[in-house]
C-alpha cells in the first residue's frame, strides 16, 4: 500500500464511531502510566513493551516524543512521524469560545468528549468593554452551563496561562491544546502545551483527539545563574535575538543543564510562554524538585520527575551562559529584533506595561515594586499594571506590593490580558511608544499601527517608567 494511503487509513479510523464509553475517543494511555512504554494491539487491547528498535537496543526519547508516544498509544515515535494523539486538557478563552461551541454544535455534537477535561476562561476582554463583548461572554456562559463544563473561570479570575498552573490543571507529561498560541507556557511544568485554531479545537472537543507531527527538538543548555536584575525574560529575549524568530519552527524546545534549577517556576513559565515566539510547538523544562514543590502545593499530588531520556536525539544543541547575560529588549516590530538594554537606553516611552501571561506574576510585580518603592514614575509616562490572576492581585495587596505601585503612580487593572493583544485597556495612539513585559511587539498589536512596542523584563520596564526612557535596570538595582 502506498505510504500516503496507509497514513490516510490511520487518520480515517477516527471516522469509525466507537460504540463503547464516550462513543468517539478511542482508548488512551492513562497519564499515570506515562513512565511505561505502551502500545496497542490490532484488537484495541493494550500491552507494555520495552521501547526497542529493530536492532534490539532501547531508543532514547525527548520529552515531546515521550508524550506523543504515550498519548497515541505507541511504544515510540520519531520526529517527522504523524500520530493521532489523545488530548489530556483542552483550553479555550473568550475570544474563541462562543464560536467554538457553535462550531461543535453545528457539527452535530452536543457536548465535549469529556467535559471534565475542558477549561474555559474569560480573560481577554474582561470586564466586557463593549456590548458585543458582553453578549459574547453571555453566550459562552450559556454554552458552558449547557455542556456541563466543570472548569469555568469567569471574568476577573485571571489569564488562562496563569490559572492552568495556579489552579492545578497541569501535570508533567500531559498533552494540552489551547486556542491560544501561548499554550506553550505549560511546558514550564513538563507538559506538552501547544496552540491550535478554533476548527481544530472543535475536532478535539468532539473526539478528544488530534493529529500531530512529532517534532524535532532543539535543546538549550543553561549554565550558571542569573545575576539580578537580569531575569528569565532576558534569557528568552536573548535566545530570540541570537537565534531568530524561526529557530524552533515546527520544533520542540527543551531547556536543560545546571542553570534550570536556578530558575523559579514563575521564571520558567515566562520562558516557555515565549517559546512560541521562536516558532516552537512545545517549550519544555524538565519537571524537577521545584516543579514538584509547586505542583504539590497546587494539586496535593506527589509528582515524579519527568524529563527526556539521557540518550534522546536532538536536532541542535545550544549553550547559554546565564552569568554573562545582560538585560535585553526587543525593538519594534519583531520579537527577535533584540539588543542589550544598554545599547538603546534613552529612548523616551509614553507607556509602560507590566503584566500578561509572560510576566504578570507575583515575583514580577515584586521586582517592579522593589524598583519603584518610595519613588514616582516620570511625568508624561503611564504605568499600567495588570496582575495575571486574582490570587496574585490578592497576594500583591497583602504584601504591600500593590500599594507601592499605586503610590508610584501605576494604574492597576483587573486580572486578565489587559492591553497586550490590542483589545482594550491602554491602547497606543499614533506615534506613541510603549515598553512592556508581554510577548509580542508586532506592528499594530496594541492599537495604532503607527505605535511602537518594546519588550523587556519587569525590572527593565519598571525602571524605564521611573525615568520615562528605556533604562538599564542595573542603574537602580545592583546584583
Amino acid at each position, binding site marked *: 500500500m502506498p505510504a500516503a494511503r496507509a497514513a490516510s487509513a490511520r487518520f480515517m479510523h477516527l471516522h469509525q464511531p466507537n460504540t463503547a464509553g464516550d462513543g468517539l475517543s478511542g482508548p488512551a494511555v492513562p497519564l499515570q502510566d506515562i513512565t511505561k512504554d505502551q502500545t496497542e494491539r490490532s484488537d484495541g487491547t493494550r500491552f507494555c513493551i520495552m521501547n526497542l528498535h529493530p536492532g534490539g537496543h532501547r531508543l532514547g526519547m525527548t520529552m515531546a516524543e515521550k508524550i506523543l508516544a504515550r498519548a497515541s498509544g505507541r511504544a515510540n515515535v520519531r520526529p517527522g512521524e504523524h500520530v493521532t494523539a489523545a488530548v489530556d486538557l483542552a483550553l479555550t478563552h473568550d475570544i474563541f469560545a462562543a464560536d467554538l461551541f457553535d462550531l461543535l454544535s453545528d457539527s452535530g455534537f452536543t457536548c465535549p468528549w469529556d467535559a471534565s477535561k475542558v477549561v474555559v476562561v474569560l480573560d481577554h476582554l474582561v470586564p466586557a468593554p463593549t456590548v458585543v463583548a458582553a453578549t459574547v461572554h453571555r453566550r459562552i456562559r450559556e454554552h458552558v452551563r449547557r455542556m456541563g463544563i466543570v472548569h469555568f473561570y469567569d471574568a476577573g479570575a485571571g489569564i488562562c496561562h496563569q490559572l492552568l498552573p495556579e489552579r492545578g490543571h497541569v501535570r508533567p507529561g500531559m498533552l494540552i491544546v489551547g486556542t491560544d498560541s501561548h499554550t506553550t507556557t505549560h511546558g514550564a511544568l513538563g507538559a506538552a502545551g501547544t496552540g491550535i485554531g478554533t476548527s481544530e479545537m472543535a475536532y478535539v472537543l468532539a473526539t478528544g483527539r488530534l493529529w500531530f507531527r512529532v517534532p524535532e527538538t532543539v535543546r538549550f543548555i543553561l549554565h550558571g545563574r542569573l545575576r539580578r536584575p537580569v531575569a528569565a525574560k532576558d534569557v528568552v529575549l536573548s535566545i530570540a535575538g541570537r537565534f531568530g524568530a*524561526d529557530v524552533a519552527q515546527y520544533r520542540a524546545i527543551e531547556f536543560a543543564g545546571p542553570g534550570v534549577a536556578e530558575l523559579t517556576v514563575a521564571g520558567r513559565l515566562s520562558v516557555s510562554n515565549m517559546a512560541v515566539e521562536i516558532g516552537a510547538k512545545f517549550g519544555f523544562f524538565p519537571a524537577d524538585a521545584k516543579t514538584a514543590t509547586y505542583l504539590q502545593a497546587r494539586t496535593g499530588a506527589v509528582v515524579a520527575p519527568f524529563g527526556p531520556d539521557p540518550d534522546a536525539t536532538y536536532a541542535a544543541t545550544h549553550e547559554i551562559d546565564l552569568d554573562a547575560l545582560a538585560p535585553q529588549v526587543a525593538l519594534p516590530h519583531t520579537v527577535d529584533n533584540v539588543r542589550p538594554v544598554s545599547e538603546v537606553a534613552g529612548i523616551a516611552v509614553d507607556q509602560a506595561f507590566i503584566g500578561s501571561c509572560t510576566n504578570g506574576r507575583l515575583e514580577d510585580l515584586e521586582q517592579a515594586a522593589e524598583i519603584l518603592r518610595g519613588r514616582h514614575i516620570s511625568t508624561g509616562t503611564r504605568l499600567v499594571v495588570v496582575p495575571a490572576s486574582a490570587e496574585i492581585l490578592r497576594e500583591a495587596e497583602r504584601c504591600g506590593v500593590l500599594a507601592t505601585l499605586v503610590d508610584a503612580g501605576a494604574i492597576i487593572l483587573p486580572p486578565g490580558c489587559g492591553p497586550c493583544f490590542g483589545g482594550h485597556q491602554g491602547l497606543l495612539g499614533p506615534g506613541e511608544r510603549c515598553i512592556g513585559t508581554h510577548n509580542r511587539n508586532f506592528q499594530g498589536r496594541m492599537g495604532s499601527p503607527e505605535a511602537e512596542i518594546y519588550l523587556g523584563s519587569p525590572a527593565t520596564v519598571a525602571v524605564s517608567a521611573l525615568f520615562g526612557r528605556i533604562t538599564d535596570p542595573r542603574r537602580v538595582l545592583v546584583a
Partner: protein
Amino acid sequence: MRVINGRVWKVGDSISTDLLSPGAYAYAPLEVRRQHVLETVHPRFAREARPGDVLVAGRNFGCGSSRESAPENLKALGIAAVVAESFARIFLRNAIAIGLVAVTCPGIGAIVEEGDPLDLDLEAFSVTNVRTGASLPVHPLSSEMREILEHGGILAVLKALGSRSR
C-alpha cells in the same frame, strides 16, 4: 488534487497574525475583518485581491496568534493559496483546517514578482511562474493535510463523523 493558477500578490518576511487579522476586529464580522487584511503593510491587497489570486510570502508567515481569522480572512478574499518561504506552525495548521491551501516553497520570493501568473501543482508539488517559466518544488502536504483539504476543512471531516454518530 489539482492545479491552482492565480495572479500573485507578494509580501515579505514575518507577516504576523496581527497584520492579517488585527486584534481590534476580534469580534467583528468576517465582511469587516477581511477589509483590514494586511492594511498596514499592503493597503491595496484587501481592496483589489480577486478570487483565485495567490499570496506569495517570505519567512515565518502567520507568526503569532492562534486566531483562525488570519487564514479565514484570506479565504474570504478569495485567495486560492498561500505559498511561503516558511510558515509559522499554527497558521499552517489553521489554513489547512479551514480548507485554505498553504504550501512551503523555499526560494519562491526570488522567482516571482507581484502580478505574475503562478501555477501551483498540488499533484506534482511544484510551482511555476508562467511569465518566466521558472519552477520550484514545494514541500509535499502530509496525508492528513491532503485529506482535510479534500474535505474542504476539518469541520467537514467532523460533520461527517457527527452525522454518522447520530
